[in-house]
């Protein structure tokens, strides 16, 4: 069964007097363990599509099913719980909490999970910081880290809750090529290693080349799919 199913989803919003269609009847389904790139130029609707999957935006029409649950019409709290349990986010601008150290940032989503013992939390933080190669920087605060390091912290944070799906919106857009490639390599390794589904948006050809599967979006519609496997 697909872990994500997008059925005929559309999204319209008003921009001043005009009504803009960000998505026009998009249908996609993504299997567990896939490493998928949603590719397209800016304004194509790829970020909106990613937000639909991430349950941080609601469709105007159609159905979004995440991990077997139809999320259309759910309350904000139910969606928050779903995000906390099943989804991990990696942002283009990293969005680390500036007042917390690297390890505290990784720990933060774990604090919200009830019945998770302190030792288990510590163990996971250490494990994922090690996985992204930042054990040495555990006590550093985000503004003391480079862009690539910040995005690694963000990856560790996204993984800490052991989500089924990790969503990354242009994860490499604010990084130089070398760090960007490193980040993507890391994501891919984790994907192979643990089977976590990765879905990311990008317009960078080099990043697209690393994806197992590419969904091409343009003008709010899916215009093509290709597999690199």
């Amino acid at each position, binding site marked *: 069964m697909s872990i994500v199913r997008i059925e005929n989803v559309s999204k319209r919003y008003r921009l001043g007097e005009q009504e803009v269609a960000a998505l026009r009847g998009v249908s996609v389904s993504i299997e567990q363990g896939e490493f998928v790139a949603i590719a397209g130029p800016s304004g194509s609707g790829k970020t909106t599509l990613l937000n639909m999957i991430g349950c*941080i935006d609601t469709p105007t029409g159609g159905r979004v099913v995440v991990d077997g649950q139809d999320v259309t019409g759910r309350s904000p709290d139910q969606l928050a719980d779903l995000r906390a349990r099943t989804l991990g986010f990696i942002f283009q601008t990293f*969005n680390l909490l500036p007042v917390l150290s690297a390890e505290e940032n990784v720990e933060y989503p774990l604090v*919200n999970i009830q019945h998770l013992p302190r030792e288990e939390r510590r163990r996971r933080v250490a494990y994922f910081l090690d996985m992204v190669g930042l054990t040495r920087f555990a006590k550093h605060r985000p503004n003391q880290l480079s862009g690539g390091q910040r995005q690694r912290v963000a990856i560790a*944070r996204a993984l800490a809750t052991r989500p089924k799906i990790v969503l990354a919106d242009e994860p490499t857009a604010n990084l130089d090529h070398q760090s960007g490639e490193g980040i993507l390599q890391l994501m891919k390794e984790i994907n192979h290693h643990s089977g976590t589904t990765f879905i990311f948006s990008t317009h960078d050809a080099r990043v697209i080349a690393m994806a197992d599967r590419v969904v091409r979006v343009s003008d709010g519609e899916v215009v093509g799919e290709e597999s690199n496997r």
Partner: protein
Amino acid sequence: MLKFAFRNLSRHKGRTALTLAAIAFGVVSLVLSAGFVDDIFVQLRENTVQSGLGHAQIAKEGYFKFSARQPYAYMIDKPEAVIAQVKRLPQVKEAMSRLNVNGTLNNGKAELPVRGEGVEPDKERFVGGFISLIEGRHLNADDVYAAELGEGLARSLGIKPGSRVTLLTSTPQGAVNTVELQVVGVFRSFSIEYDARAMRMPLAAAQAALNTHAVHTVVVALNDTSETDAAINVMRATFSGQPLVVKSWEELADFYRKAVDLYRAQFGVLQLIILVMVALSVSNSVNISIFERTGEVGTLLALGNRRREVFRLLVLESAVSGVLGGLIGVVLGIVLAFLISAVGIPMPPPPNSSQGYLAAVRVVPEQVAIAMSIGLVATIVASLLPASRVTRLPVVEALRRAM
């Protein structure tokens, strides 16, 4: 969560400092304005008591109502007994007799009507702190046929200390009597009107002028004005069997309550204005510090925090800054109050008086507590609306503002 809230405050130094400053400034304004108003009331109260009124006066029943028509019909014949009883009370510092003498004062060339008062000079200082000497000296316990004149009276008659004057009176029995007095000093009280007609002389001289041993009133000075009510009750109980009345300074000073009511209304309006300004500046800085973090709120929501949790976090942060800012404000306010009091605020003479005074800022514990709670409550209330608005934004919308 509390730890996270503290972190957010302690690691965003600039923003936190701004909010704390706004809160502390507000609390300081409240502490100082309340302390200043309170000082004015205390000064007014003490002035009233010290204007010669004393904390309480005891007189024959009917004296306060009818003495203007029949000045010598209502007198205390044995003041010593009354004084002895009064002085047994622990709250009482001193008790003294007074005798009013109305007559005319003659300097050899001209004469003027005068309101004389026979007093016990050594005891009067407990209730006459605001009568100040301009020329010569005050009466003392050894004087007998001596007098102290109000400034206006002395000027009208062209009298200097050392001059001799004659007081012409009619005694209770209806006879005309004169006593010769030596002027020892000229005084100024709070009231210009009073000074234009007033004369003070030793009780013995006044009694001689009126050919009597009785007195009009026994004036009671207490250790502290706040003990007035308790002392009055005890005195009323003590003299319940006798034809005597006990009146408190508040009952005697008719203007006092009116003045307090007027002041309270005026200051109330000013304090309300201060309160509104405090509330506005606090809510403004709380607003800014919450909206600045819209992007962060979006991140927290995306990470799976519920709206209510983020809302609670924001309000908790405000509450913490409210407590901190309030404490800073209280400390600063108290320090400032002491500094200002040490210097004093020069005040112009109140209506109907000729002397200005130095106002201070009092630290009143209840007012300080109220100021602190207002600061805290204002901060929390101010955070409710922006916190609720920010956490109700669609997550995507909030995230977009992170950039």
